[in-house]
């Protein structure tokens, strides 16, 4: 029994060390890895690449700050106007600041927006209140076995409203409960467009409240098309309600009013591991996907056709000197946080290769030297030796903190 209790202590110590020692190591020696900032230039019809203060065009020519601003005039409009060099027209299109502003859009989606503790109750705004300012309603809704409105003051169900909305949803063929509910739950938006929702049969609905009454629109789509993530947007051009990611990792947009689903010609997107950024302007969309040590940018025209692609990768943390030293010391690392989700867990990452094996064998030998003077029966220490051999520094420290000293 005492021996078991010792191994439990050794086990939790290994766990604690494998979380905190690598963390201390990276805190002391880790250096930031700068990603690139890449945008398609409507002047060059090619990509402009910035990394830190350094900017080049796609052919590798260095650009000054002013040259960069001139190559990306729509992004740097205010600065160029201040300098008095903003062009009157680009590619034959007259440059009207108001029109440029209307077409400008930015969207960002991270893996943790898809996997993590996500909200399950939402406020349903009045879409046509006749007021300029939006008001946060006094109730929140959930869509479980029906659509329920919970009064925030009394924390009780508003039966009348719940029945009214549930009945309309049912009439439109909604299969309860909802799988995804996406909207913009803030009063800081230009107007309210309600929520885009998928039901338990993966059907797609648009739900909003107009003058206190439910507005429910079922979106036509093929049964095979299922979505795993929806993010609503509030862009000034009012072209679409949301960006959507299908189970096959394709990117769609849901157009406003006519409810058309348009697929972007993007392949190989991994939403659980890549950050997605979409910059839109009067000429193009830049679909930027950023992974751990790579970037992939597709430029689309306004008809959503691909016109150019840029991709690049750089050394990851493991390939740099500090990463190589790490690979000799630590056989693995456990983290409580992952860059891909807000969920806390024990995320185990094995160190690539077997460089650590040399150090582990040295530690086994060191442990042998430590216990040798005690004239012990080595058979009783086989588990300790195995632990050091497998877990290296973590095991070595742990078995020596909780010494294998038992008396007859």
């Amino acid at each position, binding site marked *: *029994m*005492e021996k*078991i*209790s*010792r191994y*439990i*202590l050794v*086990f*939790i*110590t290994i*766990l*604690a*060390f494998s*979380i*905190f020692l690598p963390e201390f190591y990276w805190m002391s020696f880790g250096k930031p890895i700068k990603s690139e900032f890449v945008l398609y230039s409507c002047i060059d019809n090619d990509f402009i690449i910035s990394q830190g203060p350094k900017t080049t065009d796609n052919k590798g020519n260095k650009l000054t700050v002013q040259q960069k601003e001139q190559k990306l005039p729509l992004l740097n409009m205010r600065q160029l106007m201040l300098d008095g060099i903003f062009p009157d027209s680009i590619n034959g299109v007259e440059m009207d600041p108001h029109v440029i502003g209307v077409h400008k859009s930015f969207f960002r989606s991270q893996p943790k927006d898809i996997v*993590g*503790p996500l*909200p*399950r*109750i*939402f*406020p349903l705004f009045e879409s046509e209140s006749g007021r300029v300012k939006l008001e*946060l*309603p*006094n*109730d*929140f809704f*959930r869509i479980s076995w029906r659509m329920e409105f*919970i009064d*925030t*003051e009394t*924390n009780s169900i508003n039966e009348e409203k719940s029945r009214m909305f549930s009945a309309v949803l049912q009439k439109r063929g909604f299969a309860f409960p909802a799988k995804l509910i996406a909207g913009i*739950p*803030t009063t800081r938006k230009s107007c309210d467009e309600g929520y885009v929702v998928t039901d338990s049969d993966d059907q797609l609905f648009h739900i909003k409240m107009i003058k206190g009454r439910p507005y429910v629109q079922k979106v036509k789509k093929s049964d095979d098309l299922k979505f795993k993530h929806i993010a609503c947007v509030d862009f000034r051009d009012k072209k679409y309600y949301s960006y959507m990611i299908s189970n096959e990792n394709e990117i769609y947009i849901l157009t406003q009013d006519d409810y058309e689903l348009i697929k972007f010609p993007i392949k190989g997107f991994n939403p659980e591991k890549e950050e997605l950024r979409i910059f839109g302007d009067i000429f193009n969309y830049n679909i930027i996907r950023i992974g751990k040590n790579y970037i992939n940018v597709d430029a689309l025209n306004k008809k959503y056709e691909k016109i150019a692609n840029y991709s690049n990768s750089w050394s990851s943390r493991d390939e740099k000197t500090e990463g190589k030293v790490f690979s000799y010391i630590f056989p693995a690392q456990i983290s*409580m*946080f992952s860059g891909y989700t*807000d*969920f*806390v*867990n*024990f995320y185990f990452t094995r160190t690539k290769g077997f460089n650590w094996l040399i150090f582990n064998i040295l530690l086994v030998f060191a442990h042998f030297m430590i216990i040798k003077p005690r004239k012990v029966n080595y058979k009783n220490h086989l588990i300790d030796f195995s632990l050091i051999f497998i877990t290296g520094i973590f095991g070595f420290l742990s078995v020596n*903190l*909780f010494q294998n*000293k*038992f*008396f007859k």
Partner: protein
Amino acid sequence: MWKSIIYKEWLKVRWYLIAATLLLGIFVSYMFINVQHTIAFMQANNYWNVIVFRKEQYFHLIKYLPLLIGIGIAIAQYVPEIIQKRIKLSFHLPNNENKIILTMMGFGNLSLLACFSIVFLIFVGLSNYFFPYEIVNEAIVTILPWFIGGLAGYSLVSLIVLEPIWKYKMFYMVVAALFIPIYYESGVSGAFEPINFKLTIIALLISVSLLFSAYRFRKGEM
């Protein structure tokens, strides 16, 4: 005999346990007075909005309290035992030594569980009064590791107190200082869902760890 052992443990911790339960209760009551006050001043819908979308934790005040209580119970229970090595008397009883230690440990854990359960139930009850189950569920998922951490803290501090050699006491303190923060990582509300079960299993495993230092103590390790 066993009754006497349990009675001895009760005598050691009773006032401390009652005070700890009251203290936790006062903190929880204060938390909900604060909730009521916030609702009155910023309106319930705004407060719900902040909790759901900005992940504000209305219960953050009690975060380290279960840990402090766990450590306190361990000290109240085991420090008297090492003064003049009184625990050796228990080891001379005609009972299995490990059983005695496990009984003491079990009593400590059950006392803590009783204290935590009372407060936890009050917390859930009051949360349900103010908030829908989506918010309450996230709150439970978030505070659970804090309470389990209290149990783990109790076990590890007991181990440290009973360890006979100061050098090892210090080593164990380092281990505890590295291990206990696992239960107090600052995740967003609901983030601990995938790990709570694992944290509970580990806390249960540690609860028998006291046997190790008790063994070293009774074998006269110096």
